[in-house]
């Protein structure tokens, strides 16, 4: 479980996150939604410690993460997997080397064991016969799946996904969503997903928080979102013309 309490973050005197408090539960998909520029990515990067926060508390289980030193943070980070918007696969490494990287770095497994684990993870995300390809030779969807395989290689307790569907067609996006949900349930991970894709929200939004201009306005599930009284949330949810037409009908 990850708990955020009264988090504030600013850049050059401009406050981008203001008094955010939320709890992310394990075993379910926790979504942070909001417009581009609303502070979703800053919140996610603050939670994992890539941004230093101004004040507030970030708890990983019963550990106050933001007060830890560099070495202690490293230990917690070994339990995290993160899927970045642009996949962030290492260009100079093959698919196999990318997924094997955390195993090389933090385990004493033999090469045979590592290859077995790599193949298991790749198999889990439905990537076959691509071990020796480089990221530049993969499609966008394949890159995301390889990035997920790398993120789960060490059996993480926490999985962070920043816009996992950006740049993907709706069908591939659904596959990625389903995969993240499946893995979250299977390994009881605490998963946080940043998205502005309403399709993802309606597919896998078990717990959703909505932020706008750095302020948390709403919290609920996909079942509550269509009946919310929050004006800002409704503006966001029913922003596209298809949704508006459905509402009018």
């Amino acid at each position, binding site marked *: 479980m990850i708990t955020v309490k009264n988090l504030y973050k600013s850049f050059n005197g401009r406050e981008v996150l203001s008094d955010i408090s939320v709890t992310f539960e394990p075993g379910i998909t926790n979504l942070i939604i909001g417009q581009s520029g609303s502070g979703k990515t800053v919140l996610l*990067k603050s939670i994992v410690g890539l941004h230093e926060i101004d004040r507030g508390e970030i708890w990983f289980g019963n550990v106050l993460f933001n007060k830890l030193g560099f070495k202690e943070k490293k230990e917690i*980070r070994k339990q995290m997997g993160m899927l970045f918007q642009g996949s962030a696969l290492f*260009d100079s490494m093959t698919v196999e080397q990318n997924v094997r990287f955390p195993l090389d770095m933090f385990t004493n497994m033999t090469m045979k064991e590592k290859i077995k684990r790599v193949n298991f993870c790749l198999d889990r995300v439905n990537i076959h016969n691509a071990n020796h390809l480089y990221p530049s030779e993969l499609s966008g969807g394949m890159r995301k799946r390889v990035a997920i395989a790398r993120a789960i290689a060490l059996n993480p307790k926490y999985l962070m996904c920043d816009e996992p569907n950006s740049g993907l067609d709706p069908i591939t996006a659904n596959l990625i969503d389903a995969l993240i949900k499946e893995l979250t349930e299977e390994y009881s991970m605490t998963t946080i997903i940043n998205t502005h894709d309403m399709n993802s929200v309606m597919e896998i939004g078990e717990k959703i928080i909505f932020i706008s201009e750095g302020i948390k306005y709403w919290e609920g599930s996909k079942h509550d979102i269509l009946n919310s009284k929050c004006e800002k949330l409704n503006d966001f949810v029913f922003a596209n013309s298809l949704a508006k037409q459905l509402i009018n009908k």
Partner: protein
Amino acid sequence: MLIDKGLETIGRYFLLLGKVFSKPEKTSIYYRQTMRELVFLGVNSIGITAIISFFMGAAITLQTAYNTENPIYPSYLIGLGCRDSIILEFSSTIVALILAGKVGSNIASEIGTMRVTEQIDALEIMGVNSASYLILPKMIATLLFNPFLTLLSIIIGIFGGWFVGTQVVGVITSEQFIYGIQYAFIPYYITYSLIKTVVFAFLITSISAYQGYFVKGGSLEVGQASTKAVVYSSVYILMFNVILTQMLLT
């Protein structure tokens, strides 16, 4: 304002160096990375070093010959001048400037691209010390290999001087040139040249890595960081050249 920014840059540079020299996560991985960088940054620079050294040696010989046409100067001075110019200045400083262009831009653009494509964030999230993992192997590789490049440059530069001066243009006889390069030879000059090379290798790697590591934005900023890496490395090489010369030769 300018002083504040300057102090902030210096502070960030030394903090980065502190991270670079912290204990590696897994020595075997760093060893493998260092071997890779030795090939990438070192072995791949042999060609350009050899070509430039050959022609510079030749040019130094011809210039010395045309400036010592007066019969009062013995001809072997051409060989001596070629040797000392190459050992004292050319093979350490000029080669370092050329490597700042080749290796420096390479390091800044590689690390900068990794920064803007979030690969460095990915390393940090995994619990890897990204500064150490990315920069330390490059630093070790250049510190180990650049002295070899300097020695190679000295040999090829003097050979280039001999070949063009004696065999192609004929401004001096082979015997006089060889006598000149042996005349009043001070072995300490080689040590001086190698010390400079090691310092310059450190400056090229650390300054270029700093420029790449803290880049913000996209591909345009990576290009700018790469240019800054070359410019700043070159300026610091020339500045330290003066300092080291004053310290080591006087």
